[in-house]
């Protein structure tokens, strides 16, 4: 039986990660060096969170969707690199604290 909340949450998170990858490719080399570890951490956190959710070890809630929506909005608005780093850190921290 598909879990709509989980599906919505995972799709949202995948979109956020895709945006983050785009921002990485558009960044200058100095910025890529700074962002690289966070990008890898974000990918790994998503991968683990996805597994945790699909195995029903943790259930995602509407609050998770709201939080991920906020992160997505913050990422879209993060024009300068400092803000991009801050949003990426927030994303990794949310995924690791909520789904591990």
């Amino acid at each position, binding site marked *: 039986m*598909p879990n709509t909340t989980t599906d919505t949450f995972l*799709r949202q998170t995948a979109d956020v990660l895709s945006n983050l990858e785009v921002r990485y490719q558009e960044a200058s*080399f100095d910025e890529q060096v700074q962002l*690289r570890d966070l990008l890898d951490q974000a*990918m790994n956190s*998503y991968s683990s969170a996805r597994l945790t959710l699909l195995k029903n070890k943790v259930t995602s809630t509407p609050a998770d969707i709201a939080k991920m929506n906020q992160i997505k909005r913050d990422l879209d608005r993060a024009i300068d690199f400092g803000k991009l780093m801050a949003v990426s850190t927030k994303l990794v921290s949310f995924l690791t604290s909520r789904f591990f």
Partner: protein
Amino acid sequence: MSLHHQQTFLKIILITTLALSGCSPEKARSLQASALQFRNESLTAITAIDTLRKRELEAPPRTESDIRQTFISNILNSSIDLNSRNIDLAIDPYRAPDSTEWDDFVQDLKLQYEQFADIFDNLDRKPAVSRDEMKKAAEHARKLTIQMALIAKALSDNPPILTQYRTRTIVKLRKVRRDYQTLQLNSDNNVTQRKADLENQTGELLNEWRSIQQEERVLLETTVTQCMRAATMGKQVIEAADHYDDLDIAQLNGLIPTLFTTASSFTGKDYKTLQLKATRIVNDLQTDPLWSNVALPLIDRINTAADRRTPSSRPTNP
């Protein structure tokens, strides 16, 4: 007892023993050839699975001159520490992260199918093969066959996405759109040609996107086809092993051409039918009491590997 009588007596004992055990080495050898064919198809499938996963993560290829120019620009315009890690990153900022977990999974898979072939190698060297040994080999094959079917289904449920290829095209589209929208604010007469160029570029990027999608489809169909080919062969080998006592050598020898016919019938041209076959074979195996006790513990492992395959931007099933 004369020497002649002794020899006759020993022959009778030997024949009786073989008849009671139900397994002649010739029959075992005949089944071994089929098992080797199953092993070969499975190893080809594992290579295809590994290739699929690498393609999902890899960046689009760059020319040597592009790598060199980007490296020069990255190093000379940067203010970062010049250490080994950063130099490697300047050479290839899009390198996929290593995954020992995945590599271990693939190595373990390969080993299992190699070990399966070894069982038949060992049986081949024996003067007689016991029914228990054949049963053990068939049991092992059962697990490996289910595994192939489950991988085919897991891939079909989680199709590959060429993440970095897609990202590269998105980056290009964003740039073209930015340039186009900036031009629209410009009242200069020379703008018309430039706008037409950007419109053409957008059309070309549509083709690039479609070509990525096509590659993803081919990658999925090729890999699932190969896994299904191996799973179906495995199923036939096991069915032969299950009826081993009732089959004669001619019937067992007839299995090889059947396996080749099976292999050639999976072409991937009709992927929808293949998808249905993959689902059906997994359902059959899960509901058949002979298979289900082997299938259930494997499902979690295969799904875990499939879910961890692409760590980013893979759309989930709606």
